[in-house]
């Protein structure tokens, strides 16, 4: 057996100040996502309904995960009611922030959306909210095209 190194000065980390791996990712939205964001540019929300079992998916999908049959898209208002919420005080890098994040059950679907609530004096479960979209020329084609939700 050899003697182990126990002096912390002799133990090495490499690279000493940390190394970064240079990568970035570009995600396409898929067939259902393309349709959803195109309709959002026109100010409309869509969801998907399974042709066989009738389950109403939001966000929309092109297949039903339970019976693997096709779905058809249909329009919804985008309004919903708050099922749960939290006040976030730290962001991704543990810097201070203050935002109300809520899980909103959308009307006429079996699905929910996670988004930010603004312009609200107080937030409670069961509160009705509606979306505020960005202007079409500012839309980028991802979920931030919905700027925030506000009380009805």
């Amino acid at each position, binding site marked *: *057996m*050899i003697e*182990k*190194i126990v002096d912390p000065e*002799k*133990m*090495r*980390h*490499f*690279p*000493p*100040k*940390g*190394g*970064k*791996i*240079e*990568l*970035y*990712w*570009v*995600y*396409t*939205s898929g*067939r259902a*996502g*393309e349709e959803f*964001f*195109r309709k959002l540019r026109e100010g409309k929300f869509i969801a998907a309904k399974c042709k066989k079992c009738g389950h109403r998916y939001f966000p929309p999908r092109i297949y039903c995960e339970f019976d693997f049959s096709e779905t058809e898209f249909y329009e919804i208002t985008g309004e919903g009611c708050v099922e749960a919420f939290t006040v976030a005080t730290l962001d991704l*890098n543990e810097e201070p922030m203050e935002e109300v994040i809520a899980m909103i059950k959308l009307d006429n679907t079996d699905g929910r959306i996670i988004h930010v609530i603004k312009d609200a004096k107080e937030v409670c479960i069961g509160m009705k909210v509606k979306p505020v979209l960005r202007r079409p020329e500012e839309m980028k*084609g*991802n979920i931030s095209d919905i700027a925030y939700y506000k009380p009805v």
Partner: protein
Amino acid sequence: MAVGRKKISCPPYAEGTALSEKDISERRVTLFEDHPNLVYSWTAGQAMSRFLNELKNGKLIATKCEKCGRIIFPPRIYCELCYKPIDGWVYVKDTGTVQTFSISYIDPDARPLEKPVIVAVIAVDGASPNMGIMHVLGEVEPEKVYIGMRVKAVWKPENEREGAITDIKYWKPLEG
């Protein structure tokens, strides 16, 4: 239902919508770009810490296993064949033999390089056969490299060494 039927052609159809490079770079489809900010630092462990410290002194070190008699390089604190701890440290020379080599024209992101890099696996003298490391060759023309060539390490000056594998700048052919 195709099961049981022969002489048909499978797969019967190919689903999928192909995109071109311009569809992504000119944003003709909706997409989301994410630039992560992750930084890593790896512990070298027992064997590699000693290895890196010795590199700073300008020496190469290996470990030996008494049971199978191998001198193992790069060093590790266990012999993976006998599955027991190693029995001691041994210094090895900084000369070696080229086992295989390649001349690379691309960088890690698949972009072309101006000057090609000659990379080789070098079996180090003093260790058991086939105990090699990967490193780059220098001071030699790409056409003159061959398997079996004898090479010697060229070190950075002592004040520039930081305890990393790059303390050896490259390996050059041993004359004579």
